[in-house]
C-alpha cells in the first residue's frame, strides 16, 4: 500500500483538488507535495499550514477532553485533533492529522477549489487516506 507520493496523487484525484502535501507541523517541513500551492511555493505553504496545525495540536482547549484532561491519549500516539478546515472565498483547505506507530507530527493538507470541490467528500476521503498511509 501507498507511500507518500501515491497517497498525495490519490488526494489529487478528488473533485476540485488543486494541491496536496504531507507536512510536519513541528518543523514546517513538506515531506511530499503534489499539484499547486496557493502562493506558488509549496515550502512556504507547508511552513504556514504547519503553524496553524501546531496551534490546534498544542492548545489544551482543543486537545483536552472530559475523560482525558491531561492529554494522555496523545502520549499514546493518538492526536486528539482529527482535522482542521479553513474556508476561503476561493477555496477550502483540509488539514488531516496522521497517526503513526511512532512519535511523529505530520498532517495531510488538501487544497480544494471552492466551486468544484466537495468539502464533505474530501474530508472523509482524506481521513481514509491518512489511515491507509500508515495502516496499509
Amino acid at each position, binding site marked *: 500500500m501507498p*507511500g*507518500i507520493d501515491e497517497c498525495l496523487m490519490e488526494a489529487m484525484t478528488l473533485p476540485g483538488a488543486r494541491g496536496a502535501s504531507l507536512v510536519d507541523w513541528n*518543523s514546517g*517541513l513538506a*515531506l511530499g507535495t503534489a499539484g499547486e500551492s496557493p502562493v506558488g511555493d509549496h515550502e512556504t505553504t507547508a*511552513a504556514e499550514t504547519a503553524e496553524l496545525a501546531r496551534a490546534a495540536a498544542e492548545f489544551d*482547549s482543543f486537545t483536552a477532553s472530559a475523560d482525558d484532561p491531561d492529554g494522555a491519549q496523545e502520549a499514546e500516539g493518538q492526536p486528539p485533533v482529527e482535522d482542521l478546515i479553513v474556508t476561503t472565498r476561493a477555496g477550502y483547505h483540509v488539514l488531516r492529522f496522521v497517526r*503513526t*506507530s511512532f512519535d511523529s507530527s505530520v498532517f495531510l493538507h488538501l487544497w480544494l477549489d471552492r466551486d468544484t470541490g466537495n468539502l464533505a467528500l474530501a474530508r472523509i476521503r482524506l481521513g481514509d487516506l491518512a489511515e491507509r498511509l*500508515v495502516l496499509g
Partner: protein
Amino acid sequence: MLVRLAAERATGALLRDHGTLYLVDGRVVHAESPASPGMDVLLTTAGRLPREGWDEAVDRAGAHRAVGRFLVDSGRLRDGELEICHLGAVFDAAFFALSPTSGPTRFRYGVGHWFGTVRPVSAEAVERETLRRRELLDAVWPYAAVDTAPVVPRPAAPGQGVGARRRAQRAAADGKRTPAELARFLGRPAFHTLLDVRRLAAAGLVETPLDAAPDATPAPPSPAYVPVPPVADPDIALLRRLRDALEAHL
C-alpha cells in the same frame, strides 16, 4: 561541496564533523549524526516496534542494504510510516551534519549505507531545509545557549497553557538532561526537540541560561542581554530591533 557532488551525480558518503550524508546518483538517500537519534531510537523508543524487530531487520537485511524494505515486507511497518520516519531522520541528521564547522569535509566515493534507499531527496532540498531550520530556531528565540544547556522547566504563568506534547517534554526535563538527551529519551528527532525547547524558552516555560548572549553577538553579555522575565508572547521582531539599535551604539 554538496552542490558539486549533486551536479556530478556522485554516489558515496559525505563525511563531516557532526555527521554523514549518503548520496546515490547525487541525491541524498540517508544521513546520520551522533547528535540526532537514529531510526532505531525513533521506532523503538517512542514507537511500537520492539527492539528485537529492529535487530532482526538489521541482521537479515543489513548485508543487502535493505533494512527499511525488510521492516515493511515483514509487516513491522507500513510504507507510509517508513517514509515519514526515514525522511524525518534524514533531515534531522542532515541539520547537524551540515552545520557550519571548521572541520574537514571528505567524500568517499562508492560508500553506501546498510539501511537502504527509501525515498531519495535532492541535495538542494536538504541544504535549503537545513538553512531554513537554522533561521527558524533563531526566529523563535535567538539564544543558542538553550540548545546545549540542561533543560530546566519554569512554572507556567497563571492561565498559561502548555499543551500535551510539551507537557511530556517538560515532564522528562529533570534539570539535567540537555535537549539532545531529551530527544533520545523521548524518541523524538533532535531538531524538533531543539525547536520545542526554544519555543518553551521564548514562552518563559524553560530557563534561558543567564549568561546567554543572543546569537551573532560575540560581545560580552551586558544587562541588556539578560533574558527578560517570562512573557507569554514575546515580540521577537521588536526585541531584535532593540538589540540591533543597542549594538549600533556600542
